[in-house]
C-alpha cells in the first residue's frame, strides 16, 4: 500500500512541476515546455529523453487549449498559420531525426547545451516584445498578393478594427523551418522563434503573431510527437502527469497574467528562466566533460549569472523606455 502511495505522490509531484511550468510559461510568454524540460531533467532526475518527450506532448495540450479561445475570437490567422506550417512541420521532421541521431550516439549532453542556449537567447526577444500593438505600416510586396497575407481583427483594448499587411513571406518560412528543427530537437514549441518570424519578418501585429503561433505550435509538436512515440521517447506515466499539469498551469497563468498590474514582477520570472537556462548549459558542459566542478558551485555560478543577466536587461530596457519617452 505504501508503495502505491509513494507512486501516487510521484505522479502528483510531476504534475505539480507541470503546473509550475505552465504558469511560468504563460506569464513569460515562452510556453510551458520551455520551463518543463529543465524542471524535470534538473530537479526530478528524469532522463532528458523522457523530459523532452513529455513536454512535446504537453505542448500540444496547451496549444490546443489556448488556441480554441483565440480562433473563436478570430484573432489568429489560420491561413497564414497553415502556410507557415509547411516549413515548421518539415523542420520538425529534421529536428526529431537529429534528436534520434544524437541519442543513438550518446551525445545527449549537446541537447542540454543547445537547450540552455535556446532558452537564454529566446528570453531577449520575449522581453522586448509587446511594446506596441500595431506594427509600422509597410508597403505590400509580391508575396502579400500571391499568398493573401492581408487580414484584420477586432482589438478589444483599442476598441477598433486593426487591419494588417503581411510581407516577406519567404523570410518567415525560413525562420519557421528553424523553429521546427528546434521544436523537434528539444521537444518545445519554440514560440519565441515563431513570433520572431511573424512579428519581425512579416510585420504582423503582436496579437495576431502570438495567437497564430500558439495555434501553429500544436501542429508542429504533433509532427515531432509521432516520431518521438515510435522511437520510445515518451514515457506515458510522465507524459500523462505533465499533460494534465501544464494544461492546468497555463490556464492559471493566463488568469494571473490579467491581474498582474505591476509589470516589473515579470522580471522575477525572467530571472528564474535565465537561471534554468544557465543551469542546463552548465549541466550539458559537465556531462560532456568540458567543465568539472560540483553541483553547489554550479548552482552558485548559475544564480549569479542569471541575476547579472536579468539586471543588465532590466536596466537596458528602462533606459530604452526613457529614451523612447523623451523622443
Amino acid at each position, binding site marked *: 500500500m505504501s508503495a502505491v502511495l509513494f507512486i501516487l505522490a510521484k505522479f502528483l509531484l510531476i504534475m505539480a512541476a507541470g503546473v509550475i511550468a505552465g504558469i511560468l510559461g504563460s506569464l513569460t510568454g515562452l510556453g510551458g515546455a520551455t520551463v518543463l524540460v529543465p524542471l524535470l531533467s534538473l530537479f526530478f532526475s528524469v532522463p532528458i529523453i523522457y523530459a523532452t518527450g513529455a513536454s512535446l506532448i504537453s505542448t500540444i495540450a496547451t496549444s490546443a487549449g489556448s488556441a480554441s479561445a483565440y480562433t473563436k475570437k478570430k484573432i489568429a490567422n489560420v491561413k497564414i498559420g497553415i502556410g507557415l506550417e509547411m516549413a515548421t512541420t518539415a523542420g520538425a521532421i529534421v529536428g526529431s531525426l537529429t534528436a534520434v541521431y544524437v541519442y543513438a550516439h550518446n551525445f545527449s549532453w549537446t541537447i542540454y547545451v543547445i537547450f540552455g542556449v535556446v532558452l537564454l537567447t529566446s528570453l531577449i526577444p520575449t522581453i522586448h516584445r509587446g511594446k506596441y500593438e500595431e506594427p509600422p505600416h509597410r508597403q505590400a510586396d509580391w508575396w502579400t498578393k500571391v499568398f493573401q497575407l492581408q487580414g484584420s481583427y477586432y482589438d478589444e483594448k483599442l476598441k477598433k478594427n486593426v487591419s494588417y499587411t503581411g510581407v516577406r513571406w519567404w523570410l518567415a518560412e525560413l525562420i519557421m523551418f528553424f523553429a521546427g528543427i528546434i521544436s523537434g530537437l528539444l521537444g518545445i514549441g519554440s514560440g519565441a522563434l515563431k513570433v520572431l518570424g511573424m512579428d519581425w519578418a512579416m510585420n504582423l501585429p503582436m496579437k495576431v503573431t502570438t495567437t497564430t503561433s500558439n495555434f501553429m505550435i500544436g501542429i508542429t509538436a504533433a509532427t515531432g510527437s509521432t516520431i518521438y512515440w515510435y522511437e520510445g521517447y515518451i514515457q506515458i506515466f510522465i507524459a500523462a502527469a505533465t*499533460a494534465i499539469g501544464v494544461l492546468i498551469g497555463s490556464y492559471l497563468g493566463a488568469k494571473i497574467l490579467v491581474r498582474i498590474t505591476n509589470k516589473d514582477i515579470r522580471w522575477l520570472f525572467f530571472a528564474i528562466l535565465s537561471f534554468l537556462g544557465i543551469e542546463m548549459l552548465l549541466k550539458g558542459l559537465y556531462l560532456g566533460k568540458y567543465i568539472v566542478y560540483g553541483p553547489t558551485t554550479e548552482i552558485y555560478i548559475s544564480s549569479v549569472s542569471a541575476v547579472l543577466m536579468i539586471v543588465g536587461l532590466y536596466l537596458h530596457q528602462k533606459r530604452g523606455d526613457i529614451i523612447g519617452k523623451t523622443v
Partner: protein
Amino acid sequence: MEKQYDIDTITSHILKAGVLTSLLFIITGIALLFINGQGDHYTLSQIANFNSTFDSKFIPLVGIIPGILALDGVYYITMGLWILIFTPITVVFTALYSFVSNRNPSYVVMSIIVLFNLFFAMIVVPRLLI
C-alpha cells in the same frame, strides 16, 4: 466572410473537444493503473520508474482497442495521448475543407503539403528508422 467565421468556430470546437476527450482518457487511464496496480503486464512501479525500459516503443498501437476493452490503464493513456496528437491534425483537415470550398487553390496545395509532412512523420519515418 460568413464561411470564414464558421471555420474558426468549428476549429475552436474541435480543439476544445480534442483536449477534453484526451484528458478524460488520460485521467481514466491513470486511475485504472492505480486501481489495477499494473498495466500491459508491467507492474505499477515498473511503469512509474523513469529508468525502466517501459516507454512508448513497447506499446503497440494495435493493442489500443483490446487494451481499452480489457480496462488496461496503459492503453487508456495511450489513446488519450494519440487523441491529443491527432487534435491539431484535424484542424488542418478543416482548414483544407474551407480552402476547397472557398476555391483557394494555393492554400489547398499548402494544406496538402502540411498534411503530407504530418503523415510522412507518422507513417514513413518510423519505417525508415527500423
